């Protein structure tokens, strides 16, 4: 499956619109540490405001994605995944570090995104790597990518090392703490940007 619909918050206040969160997942693994980090981000976010989360697994979009050179080449399912990301209230860009940067497949997805589709869109940057020395991938590789898109990247970007996980479960309380800080910084902004209908899904 290319687009994984995830849960929506159990009990949003009736008239509060849900924040439509779309995760662009740059990890080929299932399960993965990268999604282990994102799980904690979503759990933390869920406690702050109603959310409705969907995920695009770029490594599993198939030949209609990998063989596409231009936007017009993509299959309808891939076009839907791209639109989902372009229309998110909050985009979570999450990737493991491969060869010193985000994986090529992750970049390929954003190479197909419309140039101005992410302008002024809140984007949360998250990455995982084998060690702490990879942490600046967030600032030196991911943030410039979204700088190109004129996106509104959230100031605190989130990184976790292999040693912070038991398997794919994030255990290091210091990373949990940083997630809490990063999201608290922007929770008012996110609330203001939430557009999801309270009881219906935005994209059926």
């Amino acid at each position, binding site marked *: 499956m290319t687009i994984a619909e995830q849960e929506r918050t159990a009990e949003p206040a009736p008239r509060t619109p849900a924040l439509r969160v779309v995760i662009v997942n740059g990890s080929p693994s299932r399960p993965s540490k990268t999604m282990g980090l994102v799980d904690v981000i979503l759990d933390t976010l869920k406690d702050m405001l109603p959310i409705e989360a969907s995920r695009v697994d770029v490594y599993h979009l198939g030949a209609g994605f990998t063989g596409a050179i231009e936007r017009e080449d993509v299959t309808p399912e891939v076009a839907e995944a791209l639109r989902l990301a372009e229309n998110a209230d909050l985009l979570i860009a999450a990737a493991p570090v491969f060869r010193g940067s985000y994986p090529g497949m992750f970049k390929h997805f954003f190479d197909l995104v419309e140039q101005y589709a992410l302008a002024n869109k809140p984007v949360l940057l998250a990455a995982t790597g084998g060690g702490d020395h990879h942490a600046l991938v967030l600032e030196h590789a991911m943030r410039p990518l979204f700088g190109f898109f004129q996106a509104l990247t959230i100031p605190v970007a989130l990184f976790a090392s292999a040693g912070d996980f*038991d398997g794919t479960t994030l255990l290091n309380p210091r990373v949990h703490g940083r997630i809490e800080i990063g999201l608290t910084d922007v929770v008012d902004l996110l609330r203001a940007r939430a557009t999801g209908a309270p009881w219906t899904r935005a994209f059926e």
Partner: protein
Amino acid sequence: MSFEIGIMTFGELTEDQATGALPSPRRRVRETIEQARVADQAGLDVFGVGEHHRSDFVGSAPAILLAAAAEKTENIKLTSAVTVLGSEDPVRVWEQFATIDLLSAGRAEIIAGRGSYTESFPLFGYDLKDYADLFREKLDLLLKIRDQNPLTWQGRFRAPLVDADIAPRADGGTLPIWVGVGGSPASAVSTGRLGLPMALALLLGPMTYHQETVELYRAAAAEAGHDADALPISINVHGFVARTSQRARDVMYPYFAKGMMDNNHQRGRGFRMPRAAFDAQASPRAGLLVGSPQEIIDKLLGYHELYGLDRALLQMGFGGVPQKDHLEAIELLATEVAPVVRREVALRHRSAA
């Protein structure tokens, strides 16, 4: 608990620096048992054997070496350092260590670790991608075997146990099970949550290297409802004791450097340790426990203060230190270092109480 000092070995085979010849595995296993005997007679508290599955080590089956050591010793505790639990069958591990416990009248222990080398996983048919899940599940089973017999248990990686009778039971009914932790925050947290004693591996680096590990461990233990301050912490660390600082460094350096190059490799290449780097690791604020008895005393008390340390296992023969030098170091550790550290730590506990 009172402060415990012991030694450990991997039984590595390192070529002789003068002749280039490898010691015979037969000689090396005999030397290993002799180290246990001397440590026991001199009054050390713990003897540990590590597990490495490669032809540059004789220590692939620590339980067998510990059983042999049990026959030559009277008082010393016998532990694996570590048992690579992820690639073991916990039922067999329990049977072996319970047997050592009977042979030694209650002196057996297990340090369960994930393992720093990975050779044992393909050897026993395990997939390295299950590394974390294997360890979690097998530790769970080992702890349940310790707690109850017969046992009904089910997991992913081995056949279920249905009302299984696992024998023998240990001499005193139970065995101490420690968890070996290399320093990753996640293993510190998961070990703390389980409320198990933690054996820290300290290879090189500043003495404060594991401060965060210890903080995370105790915080996770407290959060899970364990008495965090009562949980024992041990370090497994390289070192060497001699009469003088200079002699300790001069004896240890060439063998340690050789061992780091020849035995401490994952892909056929070790790493070079220049003398200056070694001396830096031997300095007062660095982790290597090499020096005169007084230097070792100061460092162990420093570690006790930093981590609330209860136990230290020194690896003093790494890289083929000649048996005669190794045995002398064991005696010095037992007679000049251990009594002072035990006394000082006991005094500190008393004045703190």
